[in-house]
């Protein structure tokens, strides 16, 4: 019988899941993902978490608890650094330990270290350690790793085309190649990007405004935590653009406009994307989503807000999510923000 590896559908799931899934499947393991976030998942996480954990960590603990008695292993890689001289948030680094201290009835945890802070460190080291649990064959592990990387490459390509993480994962896991429309229909990819061809596509009669939604993927793409933000925007007749659509090179180039390099990889992505969208003139509004208790967000949130203020009349809204957020307050702000966006679009158009 194949062994079951549990992966919580939270935090870095949104960045790396296809890699992890393909890797374990190639080694003959079964992969189980926790279900969608719900009130009970969050409540469970809040109960388990230490007081000053941020909202996404609390939620992730709820996802882990859901998997806990149902899988043979929990895969919680300790991501210290994924890029040279950069770090992932310290709460991610300590996440496997937090889980051990708080969640009851845990299966063995695979918490291999991913630390690429020094250039000579290799990502494969971590996968080799994880692979040893399932296979003795060095070659088999390496092939599984390569298969994982290929899946990850496809995943980011799909997101570049405007598919949300959920849509991209569904597409990857579907054998028949169908081509549905990506929900993030706004094509804001730069000059020579792969979407340049899409300009030939028939345009809607009235150009819908594009709003850039900047935030951690585990916040903005989680329908429960974001209160269906992206869907609400689309229902309100707005196209959305997110950082995940932009290639790494663009994001890094834009973030480099800061006088000092940001050493948080994830926030560098958000900041770079926000700067790009602000500068590109292709978006009519910037909506920033930060989570309460997030250290890096409190810093880069302010950097982005100030940059947005420098762009004069660019409508900007910062939504702070926490477990006490009332949906009514969020809706009121969102509606007023969209009024601003539309007003600007109409006012800015001659005649």
């Amino acid at each position: 019988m194949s062994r079951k590896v549990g992966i919580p559908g939270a935090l870095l799931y949104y960045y790396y899941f296809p890699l992890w899934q393909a890797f374990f499947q190639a080694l003959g393991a079964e992969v189980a993902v926790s279900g969608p976030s719900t009130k009970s998942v969050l409540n469970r996480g809040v109960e388990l978490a230490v007081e000053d954990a941020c909202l996404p960590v609390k939620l992730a603990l709820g996802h882990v608890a859901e998997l806990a008695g149902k899988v043979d292993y929990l895969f919680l890689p300790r991501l210290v650094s994924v890029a040279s001289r950069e770090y992932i948030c310290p709460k991610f680094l300590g996440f496997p330990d937090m889980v051990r201290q708080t969640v009851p009835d845990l299966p063995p945890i695979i918490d291999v270290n991913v630390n690429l802070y020094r250039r000579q460190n290799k990502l494969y080291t971590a996968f080799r350690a994880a692979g040893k649990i399932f296979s003795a064959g060095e070659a088999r592990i390496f092939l599984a790793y390569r298969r994982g990387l290929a899946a990850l490459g496809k995943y980011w390509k799909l997101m570049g085309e405007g598919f949300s993480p959920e849509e991209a994962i569904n597409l990857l896991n579907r054998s028949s190649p169908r081509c549905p429309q990506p929900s993030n229909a706004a094509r804001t990819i730069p000059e020579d990007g792969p979407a340049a061809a899409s300009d030939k596509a028939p345009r809607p009669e009235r150009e819908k405004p594009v709003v850039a939604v900047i935030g951690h993927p585990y916040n903005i793409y989680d329908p429960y935590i974001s209160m269906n933000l992206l869907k609400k925007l689309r229902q309100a007749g707005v196209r959305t653009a997110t950082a995940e659509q932009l290639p790494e090179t663009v994001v890094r180039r834009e973030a480099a406009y800061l006088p000092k390099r940001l050493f948080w990889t994830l926030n560098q992505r958000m900041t770079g994307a926000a700067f790009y969208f602000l500068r590109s003139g292709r978006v009519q509004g910037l909506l920033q989503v930060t989570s309460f208790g997030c250290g890096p967000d409190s810093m880069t949130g302010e950097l982005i807000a100030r940059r947005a203020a420098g762009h004069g009349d660019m409508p900007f809204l910062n939504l702070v999510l926490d477990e006490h957020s009332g949906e009514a307050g969020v809706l009121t702000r969102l509606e007023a923000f969209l009024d601003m966006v539309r007003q600007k679009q109409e006012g800015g158009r001659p005649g």
Partner: protein
Amino acid sequence: MVKGYLGIDAGSVSTNLVFLDEAGRIREALYLRTQGRPIATIQTGLRQLAESLPPRVAVRGVGATGSGRHLAGVITGADVVKNEITSHAVATSTLIPGVQTILEIGGQDSKLIILRNSLVVDFAMNTVCAAGTGSFLDQQAARLGIPIEKFGEIALRSRSPVRIAGRCAVFAESDMIHKQQMGYDLPDILAGLCEALVRNYLNNVGKGKEILPPVVFQGGVAANAGMKHAFEKALGLEVQIPPYYNVMGAVGAALLAREKTVRGLPSSFKGFQVAQVDFASGGFTCDGCPNTCEVVEIREEGRVIARWGDRCGKWSGALAERKTG
């Protein structure tokens, strides 16, 4: 025959109704306490408005705003349901052209709206904390045994306001009690409270916002002269209070209804007789998934006319389908 537009602001503490004539002049304005019964209060408002208006009135459009805007919308059949921020901005920029800053403090909400060239360019709203809103002032006035209407007048008599910790309503209250037990004068305490609330407002809602004149102060709390004085002192700017300061949201909703229906579209207003219709609201907890949403149902004469509160749209969506189908 009088033709015009109806604006309803269903707020947490007050429910306000205005009637604008076609030229946009305010013919009637009502300010009612919601007292926890939004539907009944809207109906009372409609009844009173119908009585004070001439018998033959044509309502060309209805706009609803406020935290109870969706409720007000389904009950009256509003043409426009708009958030409070846009409504206030529309009203003020129409009545006071050139306004650049709107300070709005209501019962539970406080907002700051920044306008440039009559367009909203930035706004902020208080988040989870209601310190510094009308409810808190109400509560403190009641505790001190002074009518809320006298609050501002007494505060203006102060010669040296006492410094009160205004970060949190609960701590502000303990601080006030402490100051009162130390023997400070009532006017100084009240003026100190106004200054604390203004400080809190400017530091939270007003954080990072560019407040430029003309500054307009509206919402129920603008009735408090002590608050106006404290704002002027803190900002170093003149603060104007518009004549209909406490019903501006409703004025904005009516103006938006006028904009919407100006092209001759018929209004979906159900008529003043909805004041006599039996409305009931109730709720249930959906057990379809672990989100256990609390779904609200509004019934008109026993028939469900609206549902909301479900995250997935299963209940609200089913109703919308039935309507169109």
